């Protein structure tokens, strides 16, 4: 796992973006950028250079699930690992996210250990 990879954090609540950013920094990932919903995340993704996407689900404008579907449908972005960090925990929603091709799913509130575990798992699979 490349600790210099560029990570895009998408959440409409700035407090949550800061929490995730700080947790990632603790894990050694310092190269992060932020967006507050899918609509603002897209231009950043399209500009290129993002290696890993961490996104909330419920956001005004474009929601996280639509952002994920967009990423999977775009040839240039389709292989990007996507981790969802959301308060949504209905069975059908988790299945929808899985079907849309999410790589990891974390429910809020979460712990630093959970975030580390999911990121490790995602990159173990990609690297193997």
């Amino acid at each position, binding site marked *: 796992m490349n600790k210099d990879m560029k990570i895009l954090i998408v*959440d409409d*609540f700035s*407090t*949550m973006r800061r*929490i995730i950013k*700080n947790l990632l920094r*603790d894990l050694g990932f310092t190269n992060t950028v932020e967006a507050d919903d899918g609509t603002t995340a897209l231009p950043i993704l399209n500009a290129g250079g993002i290696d890993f996407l961490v996104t909330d*689900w*419920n956001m005004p404008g474009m*929601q996280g699930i639509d952002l994920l579907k967009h990423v999977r449908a775009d040839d240039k972005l389709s292989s990007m690992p996507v981790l969802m960090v959301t*308060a*949504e*925990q*209905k*069975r*059908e*929603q*988790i*299945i929808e996210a*899985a079907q849309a091709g999410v790589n990891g*799913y*974390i*429910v*809020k*509130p*979460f*712990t*630093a250990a*959970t975030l580390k575990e999911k990121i490790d798992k995602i990159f173990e699979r990609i690297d193997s």
Partner: protein
Amino acid sequence: MSEGIVIDEAFIKRAKELVANAESGKDEEVKLILDELVTMKETSLFRELGKLTRDVHETFKAFRTDSRITELADDGGMADAKERLHYVITMTQQAADTTMEQIESAIPLCESITVGTSELLSSWERFTQKEMGVEEFRQLSKTLKVFLESANNDSKALMSHLNEIMMSQSYQDLTGQIIYKVIKLVEDIEEDLINLIKLSSKHIEQDVIPDLLAESSLDKSTLEKKKSSSETDNKKHKSSLDGPVVPGLIDEAETLAGQDEVDDLLSSLGF
């Protein structure tokens, strides 16, 4: 309805007769026609009143069948809102408690580091001034080792307290989502009440409505837009996201209990 009277031909005819009779001093006739005119006015008033009553009745009937209102009542929308707001209080209380506990645990660690460094600084000062004997320096060296070990542990513990404080701030996101839901409910109720006023306002001066709308946070165009798309809104409402789990408001069959259950579901799906 200008004072509930219909000025028609019959009325004008009788009014003219009233004037003619009054001019020629026919008191009995005048009294008779006056009574008749008053009755005409009252009949017209009662007719208007009957119409108003029927309109209000129809409006309430329509209101009862408005699905959002019945949903509000059936799903206990107001009770839900209260439950959600109570949970917001609980969550903010918990976050504040956690933060205070972590700070109270962190302060003694900072104090211990401060006291240790102050003592060592003065000893170090004596050492650099060559005021320290060999035996005292051996003692300082031991003290220094003990301090460095404890400071190392203390700063690790401090880091963990700071992390706990940071994580507890996630309440802002979760309570924010819950409050957004309550705001949406209040807006829906406001919209429905305004629609009720509009429906029953055929008898109210029309310019009262824009005033009411101006006082509400909803503007007229939003209202019209919402009204025209209320069908699709209702559908959207049903499939809308649940947001954070509020105890007491969970559909237990459909909602997973936490990260472990989410992990189990995902692994059953081949993740």
